[in-house]
């Protein structure tokens, strides 16, 4: 029998507010344990939650960006269970009336994933287990999250990873989350089931938790699909359970030996009034919403004549896109946008990743890059020389013109000077001339190499080519 996988994803995404969802504690990552806590987020008796308005605005931004339907009145509910990392014995979340329903995440021009809902909730703390004792760190307790739930419509591990990349790029782009996987501000659970191709019913699903990288999402889902196929093919059944992905072995393992069916006893939190989101508020948030990645990509293709691939690459990160646009504008139209794109994608982004730049304070400024590219444009230096100038810029922070001057890298475009060197090289290599004249055009490369070496790469490569061929032909019998 042929099977097809059905995958639904739940993402917990931390909203990039300065304070927690229901109190004024800081959300900064990495503080010493239990340093970002107060009476409220510790659930001390007598304390009450007060909703962070900015967190709601961030959540609304996401709803607008995915075209979800925002409820005028949504409800915060208490989800009850006992666990040491849950200070109040319940989590404040949204249950039957979430603030946003529906919506679609556009992965690329041809693929999109429909959402069931998005809701706002608070994070729990973190249990730390040691050999002798367990400890709890409540710094994370009360951090604002949105949970984004897709319909079970994803058909492969690769699609799941692509969706997650798009979603992460979207939340970063609209500025509501740093989407940092290592710090846990973008966490994913995957629901995986399989069914015979053509069947309309959903199979029994397993939920995989602890997926802390996109690669592991793909690995875990791929493994899980195979595991389920084998089970069914061998006549067994898939048991509904929660699994953990073990990155080392690449396998999914049951989280609990026996599946506990929790009754969370949700009910509306009487400490919090209904969350009202009226049309004025929606409109106000919409005005702050930046151009979305897909729209921006389309505009890059249209306005800058970029190929789709380049446009997609540049618009994955709003800061990169803005860096690109500023650089193009700093070239004053003297450099084709495609060249700028090549440099941003090929040099700037890898360098930024390597050096962990903030694009708002780049080591190579947009003006610096533009100045460098303009030097190529007007023929002062070659593309190749430009790479070494670029390296020098990174090292010293000098502007490209003074690097070119200091190192004497100005491109030689004087025809007489070039002819002189070309003739010299030809004179030194009669055998290769003979080969060329016998029809071996490959030898051209040898000559170009020799000439460029002799000139330390400073000669205008276009001119060198033209002159070389002319001089070679002139030696024909």
């Amino acid at each position, binding site marked *: 029998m042929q099977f097809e996988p059905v995958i639904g994803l739940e993402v917990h995404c931390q909203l990039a507010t300065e304070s927690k969802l229901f109190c004024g504690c800081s959300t900064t990552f990495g503080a010493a344990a239990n340093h970002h806590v107060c*009476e409220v987020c*510790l*659930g*001390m*008796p*007598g*304390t*009450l*939650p*007060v*909703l962070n308005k900015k967190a709601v605005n961030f959540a609304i931004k996401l709803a607008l960006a995915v075209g979800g339907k925002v409820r005028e009145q949504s409800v915060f509910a*208490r989800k*009850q269970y*006992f666990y*040491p990392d849950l*200070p*109040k*014995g*319940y989590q404040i979340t949204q249950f039957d009336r979430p603030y946003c329903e529906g919506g679609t995440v556009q992965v690329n021009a041809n693929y999109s994933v429909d959402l069931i809902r998005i809701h706002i909730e608070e994070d729990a703390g973190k249990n730390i287990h040691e050999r002798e004792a367990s400890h*709890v760190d409540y710094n994370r307790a009360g951090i604002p999250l949105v949970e984004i739930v897709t319909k079970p419509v994803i058909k492969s591990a690769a699609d799941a990873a692509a969706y997650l990349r798009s979603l992460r790029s979207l939340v970063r782009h609209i500025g509501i989350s740093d989407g940092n996987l290592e710090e846990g501000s973008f966490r994913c659970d995957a629901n995986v089931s399989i069914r015979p191709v053509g069947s309309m019913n959903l199979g029994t699903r397993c939920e995989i938790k602890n997926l802390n990288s996109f690669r592991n999402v793909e690995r875990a889902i791929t493994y899980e699909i195979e595991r389920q196929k084998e089970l069914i093919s061998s006549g067994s059944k898939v048991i509904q359970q929660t699994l953990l992905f073990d990155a080392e072995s690449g396998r999914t393992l049951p989280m609990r030996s026996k599946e506990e069916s929790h*009754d969370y*006893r*949700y*009910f509306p939190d*009487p*400490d*919090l*009034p209904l969350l009202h989101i009226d049309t004025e508020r929606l409109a106000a948030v919409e005005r702050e919403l930046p151009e979305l990645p897909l729209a921006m990509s389309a505009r890059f293709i249209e306005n800058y004549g970029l190929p789709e691939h380049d446009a997609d690459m540049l618009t994955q990160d709003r800061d990169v896109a803005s860096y690109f646009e500023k650089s193009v504008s700093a070239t004053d139209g003297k450099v084709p946008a495609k060249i700028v794109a090549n440099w941003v994608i090929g040099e700037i982004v890898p360098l930024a990743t390597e050096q962990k730049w903030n694009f708002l304070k780049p080591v190579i400024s947009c003006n610096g890059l533009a100045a460098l590219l303009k030097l190529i444009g007007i023929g002062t230096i070659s593309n190749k020389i430009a790479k070494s100038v670029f390296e020098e810029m990174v090292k010293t922070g000098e502007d490209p013109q003074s690097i070119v001057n200091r190192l004497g890298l100005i491109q030689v475009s004087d025809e007489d000077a070039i002819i002189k060197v070309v003739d010299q090289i030809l004179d030194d290599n009669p055998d290769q001339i003979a080969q060329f004249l016998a029809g071996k055009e490959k030898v051209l490369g040898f000559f170009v190499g020799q000439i460029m070496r002799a000139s330390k790469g400073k000669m205008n490569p276009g001119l060198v080519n033209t002159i070389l061929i002319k001089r070679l032909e002139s030696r024909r019998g």
Partner: protein
Amino acid sequence: MTTTAAFHPYQLSASEISKLVRSGEVKLSDLAEFYLDRTRSIAPRLNSHIYFDANSVESQISVLGERVKAGEDLPMAGVPVLVKDNICTRDMPTTCASRMLKNFRPTYDAFVVERLRKAGAIIFGKTNLDEFAMGSSNENSSFGPVYNPWDLTRVPGGSSGGSAAAVAADLAPVALGSDTGGSIRQPAAFCGVYGLKPTYGAVSRYGLISYASSLDQIGTFARSVIDTAMVYDVIASHDPRDSTSRRGSSPELINSLAHLKSGLKGLRIGIVTELFGSGLDESVNSSIRDAVRVFQSMGAEIHDVSVPSLRHSVSSYYLIATAEASANLARYDGIRFGHRTTEQVNQLKEVYKYSRQEGFGREVKQRIMLGTFALSSGYYDAYYGKATQMRRQIARDFNLAFERVDVLLSPVAPTTAFKIGEKIDDPLTMYLGDICTLGVNLAGLPAMSVPCGYDHQNLPIGMQLIGRPLSEKELLTTALAYENEVGSSLKRQPAL
């Protein structure tokens, strides 16, 4: 009562005390000494106090003395206030009368305590209550029952029994309580003092340890309407830390009451017919009928008014309150604060199980179980869902009634104070005794217990005045007119 104090303010009102302190006519130390002596001799007989510390009082008055000297605006200068022990105080334990919080010391002051301190009041101690405010007799306290000062074999009512008994016995002129289903009004009636349960949201709940969040409200005990107004003015204010706190509560009541004209001409008073049914003591009934005639004689119009859904208030209340309580009390798990079992345990689950088993009393466990059940999957709609529907109906019925009248009048409780032990093994009868007060909490209305007489055993009787949301001013105006008219003839003191 023997005292060596140089100053003898027995039965003095809060407003008089504040005036005397501000004018310098009385020394804070003499005032404090009087109440300290009185508390030492009487509080143990009533078991009204859970915490009382002379050192704390002395350190408070030394700071307060400076503030009085500096001429700060202190409307409650030197007024001793007792605080129900489910309201957080930074410098005193806050136990909820539970073994669970026996050694719990909050890190912060409740909003109302902050306000009282700012106004110059002295926090004189913490009063006994039914554990986590769950009860109507103050018998459910892990610190033992409170005894009614009018008859030490009887209950003071609950859950704010300690505050009511203490104010009746003048261990302080005023006290704070909390009222979730009648926990201020019923003990006020049983102890013969004024008890105000403000509109839901008029007084911040920040620092009130939650029993049932949508019903809990902090309010006052006092021996006069003016003192009630004084405390209400201080504690009623918008608080951004409580999302259910309302704007537009109208303090400055004390000034508007000072300009009260006599008479109640044009006031429409509605008699809630459902609350005068069978089970009502004849002495309570006739005492309230007398009060009605007093209102009539002062020019008020009297109407019979029906609030039909009130007959469902007991079931609705005991589902909603317990459901909320089951979640509110989940935080007492032995992990971060409160009682933790000393049993050798092997599993996390056992820490929860034993800590909660040992920390909570019987009534609290009963209500947690009931509430947990009401919210359980498969039962939610039939219990919690239905109860919230009925709650909306009760609010609608009250609204309709308030289209016809300005103030509603009823008994506070069907009987006067009953004997300790009389009902404790019969929870249903105990719950049914709350019928007169529960609807008010379900609808979020302000209501007040006003002393209006005594039965043949010299036990106090209270009537309940109920107003529209945020109509505390009308309620107090009505109560003050009544007090001015008959108060002096009703004034008796418990013989202690």
